[in-house]
């Protein structure tokens, strides 16, 4: 590095200023208030773990339910994403590029838009019901499609799938064909090649995909609100309520960091599992 180049580190200053003032400072403050309390709608400095204790006590059912759903979504989506990325990379030939193109289109397309569309598709007077009725398959509309955990899983899976495919595909792209062919020639079954050669080389991509899905699903509040119905009490919905007019921001903060903490623990455990099972030999 020449001195002329090093002296231009100031170029990063505007970015650093925004990062510190609009990201680090808010996040630190938000963390600190999780140890405060709210009196008469005002935050009061304190140093207590009461909010965390209350989170675990009053919202344990909701936390467990949230992570059951988020974990289910993350496992399903990561698996589907791996198989799809595998087909794009190894089995699709010249259709690989168009398939990837579809993923990129689906990646955008609007967050709220997608949730809304699923609501209309699954609804009682919705697309599926009216289509089934028209075809004479059902006489009465099916009511169990919307407002339940399965609808939440479908909607969030649809949203996170493109997000999960990209990192896995990125990891698969750097795998060379030769060792795979060699393994086949030496008598390894297709499954063994995937298990022993392909998977160990893309485990970082798989873990990234899993983490993205888990974090996103665990922290979402719009899908449970619009799709989940009254009995789908996911924690995001409860966190969001703490920031309304009668909310308790300190409590909301403790709930948010509890969710982040659990996410980190789950990701660490799943990461350990993936790295032990898929060892590079």
């Amino acid at each position: 590095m020449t001195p002329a180049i090093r002296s231009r580190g100031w170029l990063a200053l505007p970015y650093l200023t925004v990062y510190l003032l609009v990201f680090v400072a808010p996040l630190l403050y938000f963390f600190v208030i999780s140890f405060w309390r709210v009196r008469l709608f005002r935050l009061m400095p304190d140093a207590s773990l009461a909010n965390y204790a209350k989170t675990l006590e009053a919202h344990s059912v909701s936390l467990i339910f949230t992570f059951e759903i988020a974990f289910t979504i993350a496992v399903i989506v990561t698996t589907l994403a791996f198989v799809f990325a595998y087909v794009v990379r190894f089995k699709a030939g010249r259709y690989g590029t168009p398939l990837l193109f579809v993923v990129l289109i689906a990646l955008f397309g609007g967050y709220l838009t997608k949730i809304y569309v699923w609501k209309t598709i699954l609804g009682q007077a919705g697309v599926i019901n009216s289509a089934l009725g028209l075809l004479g398959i059902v006489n009465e509309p099916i009511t169990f499609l919307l407002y339940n955990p399965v609808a939440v899983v479908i909607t969030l899976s649809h949203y996170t799938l493109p997000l999960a495919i990209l990192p896995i595909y990125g990891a698969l792209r750097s795998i060379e064909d030769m060792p795979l062919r060699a393994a086949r020639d030496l008598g390894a079954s297709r499954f063994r090649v995937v298990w022993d050669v392909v998977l160990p080389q893309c485990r970082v991509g798989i873990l990234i995909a899993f983490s993205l899905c888990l974090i996103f699903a665990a922290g979402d509040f719009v899908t449970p609100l619009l799709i989940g119905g009254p009995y789908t009490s996911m924690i995001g919905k409860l966190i969001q309520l703490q920031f309304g007019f009668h909310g308790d921001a300190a409590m909301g903060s403790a709930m948010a960091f509890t969710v982040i903490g659990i996410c980190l623990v789950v990701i660490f455990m799943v990461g350990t599992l993936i790295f032990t099972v898929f060892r590079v030999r």
Partner: protein
Amino acid sequence: MSDLPTILLRLFAVVIVVFMLTPLLVLVLFCFSERSLVTFPITGFTLDWFEKLFERPAFWDALQNSLIVTGTVGVVSTLLGTSAAMVLARIRSRYVGPIMLLIMLPIMLPPLVLGVALLTYFSTVEVRLGLFTVILAHIVFTQPFVILIVQARMIGFDYRIVHGARDLGASHLKAFVTVTFPIIRPTIIGAAMVAMALSVDDFIVTFFTIGGGNTLPTFLWGMLRMDVNPTINIVAMLIMLLTVVVSLVALRVTRWRG
């Protein structure tokens, strides 16, 4: 020739493509349906719902706000991110990994957490919520993408030509404007487009940082909670169209690189 497992795998890929795209196509279809319910059968097609929506001043306000936010975020985020990536790309140390992790942090949090943290912070330091705070918030979560994209391009950059320009007497700025920028322009435009696509689509962070007023996604949210009428379809489709078009432009200019 393909054997059975390969055929099954390809069939799987087709099913996934159908799963990913059908909802979006269903939405476009029902934008033109003349019935006031989103149900089959479609008895006829009409543009009336577009007219109904365009009559509402609130829609134009939301669209205008969205354009202001997205335009500003596109410019500012790209400027800040590109200059930071320039510095970052030249750091050769073992700290690059951890630094990248810190840069990515804003997008590794659930958007809900970023939104409520900013809301709490802004109301404590008494910054009035409005488009300004939305823009600040959007800059924070679009920055990682810009930096990632531009930095990836700069890693393989041949600095000898810049040194050549400098040796021939060009200032740093002139060397950047006349040499570096034209070479990496597609990447920078691509990064700006990605930032804009993310910004125009964002609902969660905007919801907490806007105070009053609406962007297109928060306008859609308001409609979802109150009306049941097909103009919702059109707002939803417009958001989808904006993000898809912007990201297609990004792909086109970068030609799949970066």
